[in-house]
Each structure stands twice: as structure tokens, then as C-alpha cells.
């Protein structure tokens, strides 16, 4: 069965936003701050030729902030700048060449203040005003932990760092505002139509009917097109209103890499009490996220990071505390996994190091602590559905020949001075959908199916196909329920004028939550079906009975359901260069039920490649507030020569509230990559690492230091 979007994409015919031209269209280019932190004193514009105009904070009809959660992100900075690259104003006009020249001539005087450039600095200053943007704490009472620690055999403390990750969607960000007398239509590459619509209503101080948001073909998102496009949408819409023309804003790759959101760099501090045999008595985690210059979605990212801070384990006397800290760097935001990849990298690394202390194979050690059905979660919720982790582990041990490989590698490594082989594992889960009661209280998803007179059925939902395949999977669900051929189901690009708010395309929620609503809607339509008559059915979200989530105390069921995974990775490390070569990658997953095998395989291969690369390959750094890697080759996401073919298997474990039992799958596949690759490198070199990515530079430094100590 061909994917719905196959033809247009494979033939190259599909127009993306940068291919679009409309009548009376001008381009916008942004003047960005060159200072990390400072107060704007004056703005001097060059003489603008006819047809060229500047648009800034004064042109915003509504309040000057991008509506996300907090009101801390200006659309155009007009008092303070908080990071290098922050938009101050936009120049619009017909010719990009002229616009770039004019941009060079804008003079903005900024009084520079002392910036916070790194997470380290922010942690030191976390009690200073404005530095801590959000903070949560939960779990075992600290006095109890103290008394356990007093009696413990030993206490292991580790500090672990995770780096930036850049989305590198194939299509850079782009947004077009089409100017009409009675409405502004914003069209572009996006994941969340109604986030954008709400931001526009706020920025333009207008009514619901005055703006309309239409998704254009979207070449990848990975979370990078979750909240960031709201700002670009405000830019083009404000400009379109001001100049009464349609305005196009498209980034080239380097602009996109330098100014758009990234995965939050994090620091995790573990403090674990062990008994004589290396059993865990208690564990505390402190987690710090680098938010960058404004809060954006960081508090929610922190929540997910904390909720996953104990991994897939039942740890006795567990305590967690987390902080979102401000730095004067490019804001960080949503990224596939949403805080969980940082936590899983950290906890898997820590568990592996604890197993070394206990002198037990890492996988054996981790299995002792695996949660089981009926166990409480770290927030006093409940793992109420069956958990297949043990089966999946056993199966993967067989497929990968783990035990044999482990001994073989150790022998081979004795012989081979230059190349060392290693094998590592990761165990992980992903909570599907929004945290806590978010789906019920905030999102309130609604879907619609429309049947035309000639009995054509169309999906009317606000979710984006950004390449992940929902055109195909959701159409399949509706086709099956209606007993219609899949080819006949229509799923047009969503337009807020046509579609109800079925929620954003994030949080591994689309198949499970929106898919379930569509299944129900299709059932309803079928029961009411009248041939040759226009019909419409609507379905609303129904919340699963759970232990109510309390955001203040951080207690209750954090998620309605969990997807699970096991990865085993083999690597070969070149000890002369520190280069890591992936040799084999194995993966087992429980995603409830697969709707389409090839779409799922796409998620597995892509998610794993991205997750593995997060662990050893992709490296982004910021120096005095400036992102250093401005091109794909400098940043180094994996190519087809870096990734090996991935042997994967899916275990059925149907979930009652997902369509045919389907749970979330999009983010899960990324999460296990980095910890497994780190574990494999550690196995090869018999050296622990305290950070990802474990780059060649990190490896050479560690090997060199080791030699230095011995010599």
C-alpha cells in the first residue's frame, strides 16, 4: 500500500512553503541581536527605498509576546535582548538581495550586560532573580534518605552531562502570511496549527475569524516545529498587517541552525546509597535544564524529564528535584522525547556504573530493578497494564547473541591493540500523550469526519503529517472502520477554518489519542451512514480512569499508557582516533499494536539513528552565546554510511484506549539509542563516561588521561 504522500514527495513535485509564490508577496528578513544580554538604546534604520519597510514591536497590534506558556518571549525585542540571534525587527520588500544589503546598514545600539552563557554558570547563580524559571521536587522524604545513607555501605555520586541536539529537519523553517482584506492566512511548515492560531489572535489582538492557519507540506519536525513556528507566524502576520502585503519568511540552513530551538542541554546529579552487595538502598537525582533565554515549553520538558528520572526501574526511596535555568543563549524547546532522552541517558549510564561497582553484568543488574505490572510509579501512580520487558529482553538476548558476543569481544580486544569492540544495552519507556490530565484539561481534542454528497469521506483534524506518516495510518483506521478502500479516504492538509482542534502533533499522542477518536467517529458515521447525503460526525476526547494527576505535589498517574523498548548496540572503537563505528543495532518495542508496518519501521530506523547519533555523533556547542556549528557537515548528523541496518521486532500488547490497541511510537524509538551506544563504548574501552555525546574528542581525552595516570 503506497503512503498517501508518496507520489508528490518521490517525484519532487510537492511544493513546500519556500516554493510558493502568491500575488503581492514580499520577503521578510530579520535583524537579530548580536549581543547576548543587553538593553536596546537606539535603533537607526538606513533610508529605505520605495516598497521597503521596517516592522518592529511598534507594529504589533496586540501585546508583544509569543503566546506559549509564559509571557516572556517578545515577538520583536524592544527593550532587552536576551540572546544572540533574538529578532529585533524585520525588513520587508520585494528583493532579497536589497534586503540583505539594508540589513547590513541597520544600526542598533545595545548597552551590554553581563550574560550567563553556560548551564554551569546558571547553576551557580540559580538563586539570583530570574535564573530559576521553574522547579519541581517529589519522592522520598529527604530525612529518610539521609538516615538510609548513614547506614549504607557506600554512597556513589555521579554528575552527568548531556549536550544540545539539533533537529536537522530536511526542510528549514518557513512561514508565509497571505494578506487579505478580511483575514490573514498563515501558511507554513508546522506541527501545531492551533498553537499558532492562538499566538496570532493574541499578537494581532483580533477575532477568531480574522486569522486562519494552514499547514503546508512539512519536511520533518521532530519537535522543532512545535512551538518555534508560532514566533515566525507572528512575525509574518504582524508584517503583513503592517505593510498590507503577503510576507514570506524562510530560513536558510545556517540561520535555522543558529537561531531555532534545540534539545535542552542538561546536567544530572545522582546520589545513590548501596549496601555491601551493591544493591540500591536509595537514590536522589538533581536535574538541571538549560532553557536558554526564555521559558517556552521548558517547564513541561522538565516535568517529563523528572517523570522519567528513574527510568524503567523500581528504585527504593527515590527522590527527584529539577530546575529550569535561564541562560542568555538561543532558547531550547521541544525535541522528540521532550526531556526523556536526557533522563534515560543519565539513569542508564548511572545504573551501568552501579553494576560495575556491584561487579554484575549491567543488563542483569538492571533487570533486578525492572518495574512490573501493578507496581507504583515514582509519582504514586500505577503501571496498570501488562509489561513485556522481560520477554523483549530475553528475545533480544537471543537475537543478538549477547552473552557470547560479550566474551568474544573481550578476548578479541586483548589481541587487537587498535580496534576494540563492545556491546551495550538500554531499557526504556515512553509515557504516551500529554503529561497528567493535560489531554482532559488543556487539549480537549475534537475530531471530525465529513462525508460529501458523493460519499467521499475526509478527515478533519488539526494534526500534521510531517513525514511521520499519519496521512497513511489515520486514513487506514477510518477506511477499516467504514469498510471503504484506503485510497478513497481523503486527508487534506489541515486548515483551521475547516478542522476542529484535535490538539498539537506532539507527545506521541496522534495515533493513540486522535486515532482512537477517529476510530470512534468512523464507527458512528458508519452507523448513521446515508448514501448520497452530506454528513458530519464529531467525537470528543474521553479521559481514562486513572489516579488523578496533581501537578503541585507531583503525584498520580502521569500518563495514561506507556510504550516500552529494549536496544542492544555493538560498536567498534578506533583507539587511535576515538572514532566509533556502529556494527549492529537490535531493537524490540511494545507500542501496543502497529497500524502500518512500514510506517512503524520508518519511525524505528529514523528514531534510532537520531537517538544513537545523540549519544556519540552529533555535537553542537555554544561559545559566548553563539552556536558554533552552522552547517550540517559541521554538526554531523549520521549519513547512510554511519548507520547500519537495524534489526527490530514489535511485540503486541494492545491498549484498550488506543485504536486497535495502538500506543505512542514516535518518540520511544529515539530514547534508547544514546544510552545503548554509550554502554557499548564503555564496554569496548572498559572506561566509564559521564556525558553524551561520547565524541572522539571525549574518548581520546579519556584514553590519554588514563595512560597519563598509569605512566
Amino acid at each position, binding site marked *: 500500500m503506497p503512503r498517501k504522500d508518496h507520489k508528490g514527495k518521490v517525484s519532487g513535485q510537492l511544493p513546500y512553503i519556500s516554493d510558493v509564490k502568491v500575488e503581492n508577496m514580499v*520577503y521578510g528578513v530579520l535583524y537579530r541581536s548580536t549581543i547576548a544580554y543587553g538593553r536596546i538604546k537606539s535603533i537607526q534604520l538606513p533610508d529605505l527605498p520605495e516598497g521597503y519597510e521596517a516592522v518592529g514591536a511598534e507594529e504589533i497590534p496586540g501585546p508583544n509576546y509569543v503566546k506559549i506558556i509564559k509571557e516572556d518571549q517578545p515577538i520583536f525585542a524592544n527593550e532587552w535582548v536576551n540572546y544572540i540571534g533574538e529578532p529585533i525587527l524585520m525588513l520587508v520588500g520585494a528583493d532579497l538581495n536589497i534586503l*540583505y544589503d539594508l540589513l547590513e546598514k541597520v544600526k542598533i545600539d545595545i548597552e551590554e550586560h553581563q550574560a550567563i552563557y553556560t548551564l554551569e554558570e546558571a547553576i551557580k547563580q540559580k538563586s539570583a532573580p530570574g535564573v530559576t524559571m521553574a522547579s519541581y521536587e517529589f519522592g522520598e522524604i529527604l530525612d529518610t534518605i539521609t538516615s538510609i545513607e548513614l547506614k549504607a555501605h557506600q554512597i556513589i555520586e555521579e554528575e552527568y552531562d548531556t549536550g544540545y541536539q539539533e533537529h536537522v529537519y530536511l526542510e528549514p523553517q518557513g512561514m508565509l502570511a497571505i494578506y487579505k482584506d478580511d483575514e490573514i492566512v498563515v501558511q507554513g511548515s508546522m506541527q501545531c496549527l492551533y498553537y499558532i492560531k492562538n499566538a496570532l489572535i493574541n499578537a494581532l489582538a483580533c477575532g477568531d475569524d480574522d486569522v486562519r492557519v494552514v499547514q503546508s507540506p512539512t519536511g520533518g519536525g521532530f519537535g522543532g516545529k512545535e512551538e518555534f513556528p508560532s514566533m515566525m507566524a507572528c512575525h509574518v502576520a504582524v508584517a503583513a498587517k503592517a505593510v498590507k502585503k503577503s510576507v514570506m519568511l524562510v530560513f536558510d540552513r545556517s540561520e535555522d541552525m543558529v537561531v531555532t530551538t534545540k534539545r535542552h542541554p542538561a546536567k544530572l546529579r545522582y546520589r545513590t546509597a548501596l549496601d555491601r552487595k551493591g544493591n540500591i538502598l536509595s537514590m536522589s537525582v538533581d536535574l538541571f535544564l538549560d532553557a536558554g533565554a526564555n521559558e517556552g515549553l521548558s517547564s513541561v520538558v522538565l516535568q517529563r524529564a523528572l517523570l522519567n528520572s528513574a527510568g524503567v526501574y523500581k528504585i527504593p526511596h527515590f527522590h527527584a528535584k529539577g530546575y529550569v535555568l535561564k541562560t542568555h543563549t538561543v532558547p531550547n524547546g521541544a525535541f522528540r522525547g521532550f526531556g526523556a532522552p536526557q533522563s534515560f541517558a543519565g539513569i542508564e549510564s548511572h545504573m551501568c556504573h552501579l553494576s560495575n561497582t556491584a561487579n554484575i553484568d549491567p543488563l542483569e543488574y538492571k533487570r533486578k530493578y525492572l518495574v512490573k505490572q501493578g507496581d507504583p510509579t515514582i509519582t504514586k501512580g500505577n503501571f496498570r497494564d501488562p509489561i513485556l520487558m522481560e520477554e523483549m529482553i530475553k528475545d533480544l538476548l537471543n537475537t543478538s547473541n549477547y552473552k557470547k558476543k560479550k566474551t568474544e569481544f573481550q578476548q578479541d580486544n586483548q589481541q587487537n591493540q587498535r580496534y576494540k569492540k563492545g556491546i551495550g544495552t538500554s531499557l526504556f519507556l515512553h509515557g504516551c500523550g500529554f503529561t497528567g490530565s493535560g489531554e482532559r484539561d488543556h487539549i480537549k481534542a475534537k475530531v471530525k469526519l465529513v462525508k460529501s454528497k458523493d460519499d467521499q469521506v475526509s478527515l478533519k483534524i488539526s494534526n500534521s503529517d510531517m513525514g511521520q506518516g499519519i496521512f497513511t495510518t489515520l486514513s487506514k483506521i477510518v477506511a477499516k472502520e467504514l469498510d471503504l478502500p484506503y485510497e478513497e479516504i481523503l486527508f487534506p492538509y489541515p486548515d483551521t477554518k475547516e478542522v476542529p482542534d484535535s490538539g498539537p502533533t506532539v507527545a506521541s499522542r496522534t495515533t493513540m489519542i486522535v486515532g482512537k477518536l477517529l476510530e470512534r467517529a468512523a464507527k458512528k458515521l458508519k452507523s448513521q451512514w446515508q448514501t448520497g447525503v452530506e454528513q458530519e460526525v464529531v467525537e470528543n476526547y474521553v479521559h481514562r480512569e486513572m489516579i488523578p494527576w496533581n501537578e503541585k505535589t507531583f503525584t498520580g498517574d502521569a500518563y495514561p499508557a506507556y510504550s516500552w523498548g529494549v536496544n542492544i548496540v555493538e560498536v567498534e572503537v578506533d583507539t587511535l*582516533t*576515538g572514532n566509533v563505528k556502529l556494527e549492529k543495532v537490535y531493537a524490540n518495542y511494545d507500542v501496543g499494536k502497529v497500524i502500518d508496518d512500514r510506517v512503524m519501521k520508518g519511525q524505528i530506523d529514523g528514531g534510532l539513528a537520531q537517538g544513537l547519533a545523540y549519544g556519540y555523533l552529533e555535537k553542537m556547542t555554544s561559545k559566548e552565546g553563539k552556536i558554533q556549528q552552522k552547517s550540517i*557537515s*559541521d554538526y*554531523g548528523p*549520521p549519513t547512510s554510511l554511519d548507520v547500519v541496518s537495524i534489526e527490530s521486532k514489535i511485540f503486541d500488547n494492545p491498549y484498550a484506549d488506543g485504536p486497535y490497541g495502538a500506543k505512542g511510537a514516535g518518540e520511544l524509538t529515539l530514547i534508547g539509542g544514546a544510552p545503548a551506544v554509550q554502554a557499548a563504548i564503555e564496554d569496548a574501552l572498559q572506561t566509564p563516561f559521564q556525558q553524551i555525546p561520547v565524541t*572522539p574528542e571525549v574518548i581520546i*581525552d579519556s584514553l590519554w588521561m588514563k595512560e597519563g595516570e598509569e605512566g
Partner: protein
Amino acid sequence: MAEKITAYRFDQLDQTLSQLNKENCAIIAGGTDVMVMYKSRRGVPPKIPKPIVFIDHLSELKRVYQKHKDLYIGACSTYSELLENPLIPGPLKKAIKTIAAPAIRNRGTLGGNVCNASPAGDTLPLLYVYNAKLLLRSVNGERIVAISDFIQGVRRIQRERNEIVAEIILPSVMEEGAHVVFEKVGNRNADAIAKVGFAGYIRLNGAVIEDARFAFGAVGPTMVRSVDIEKGLFGKTIPLADTDIAQVVGAFDKIIKPIDDQRSTAIYRKTVALNLLRYFLSMNQYQHNQ
């Protein structure tokens, strides 16, 4: 409106050379460096400040042949063409395979890599240890210059405005029977700019070293090579004594001065460069491989 540009594409090398003699032009072979160098921001065509001369189609610049013991490689041979050619030594093919990806290898040329004179040019370490010479042509005739004299710094070459690099000559390469290695260290396996490049060359008579050459890329403004250090190894026997190895590595330690940049660190580059050298010197056997 796009500005007008002048571009020449002559059928013959002679016409090309006489145009170059009349006018200061930008030479484009494959264009894979030129187009990047002059690229503008999105939506604006590249701004090349001079008239353009295309040379990639000139058959005089695309021949690969053997003359006596020497190998002549036309400057405009593309990487893809060279990979197909049986005369090209194995190590050079290995280096070419590490360059970019197929699309760029279909356009990029060996002459372009030399004339671009990037510290990270991947064919350069090998060309240095092969003692490559360049045959330059102009309306005034020909001249031959050693690659190490031709490349003077980052993107600085000793080319007169009216000259074209016509051929790259690898002297004696067809007969010598040396052992040559090439290693590129990049951040990934394709489309990567070298963090360190290394070429090693050794020729033995029995167990006695007759000739040894080493070149390092991406650790300085140009390739690092030292004939003085190399000479110290002539006449020594393999396997080399640890002290000899330490001496050579120590000598290079003093002259390799890499930098920190967005791709790697100075300390990494240096450590790895010396690791690769040490490894090459520590081999017990060297097989002829060209």
C-alpha cells in the same frame, strides 16, 4: 533583477588560455568549492566578482596516462572518473572515497582540490608524500612546480593569473613499490571535513628504510611535512626501535600546531595525528600497495 555575468566556455584549452591572458577570471572546474565560496544568503545567486571561465569539459585536462615511471593525471578529472581508472594508485582511491558523497564526486576534480588549497583538502596529504608536481600552462608555455612550493597557505597558491593547472604528476609512482597509507579522521563517514588527515609512505630495501615520507592535513595552514625528520629514518631497519619511533613522533610534536574550531580541538588533532604516525611507524611489515 539578477545582475549580468560573463562566462566563457571555450572548446579548446588554447582559447581558454588566451582569454585568461587577457582578463582576470575565476576558473571553475567542478565548481564545488567556488560555488560555496561565493554563495549568498538564501534566494540570492552567488556573487562571483570576476568573469567565469569553465574548464571542466576540456579534454586536454582530463587525460590520465603513464609516461616512463610517472603518472600524469589531468587536473579536471573528476573523482568519479579517477575511481574508475586502473592507473590510479589504491591509496589515492581510498582517499577519494572519503571525499563528500557521490554527487560532489561527480563534479569535484583533483585540480580543484589542489588549487583550493584548503588545509582539509583530502587528496593533499597523499599528493605531498607522492612528491606530486604540477604542470602549469599559460600562453607563455609550461612550467612544473612541486606541490609543496605551489601551495603557500590557506587558499593561497603560486599561480599566475594567466595560468591553468593542466596536470598533476606523481613521479616514479608506477614503479617504486612503496607502502603507502592514508587515514582521514572526520566526524562521520560521508560529507565530512577532515579533522585530521595523515599519509605515510615507506620504501624498503629488505628491512632497510630507503625512503620515508609523512604528511598531515587539517593540523596547520597547509600540509605538515618535514624532509629533515624523514631523513633521520633513512638506513634504519624495521621493525623500528622504540627510541627511533619516539624521536620521530617527538620531532613532529614540535611542529604540528593545530587549532580549536567548530569541528574539533587542537589537543585532539595533535594527539590523533601523532597516534596515526606512531602506529604507522610501529608496523612490523610493510607491503607494496600501489
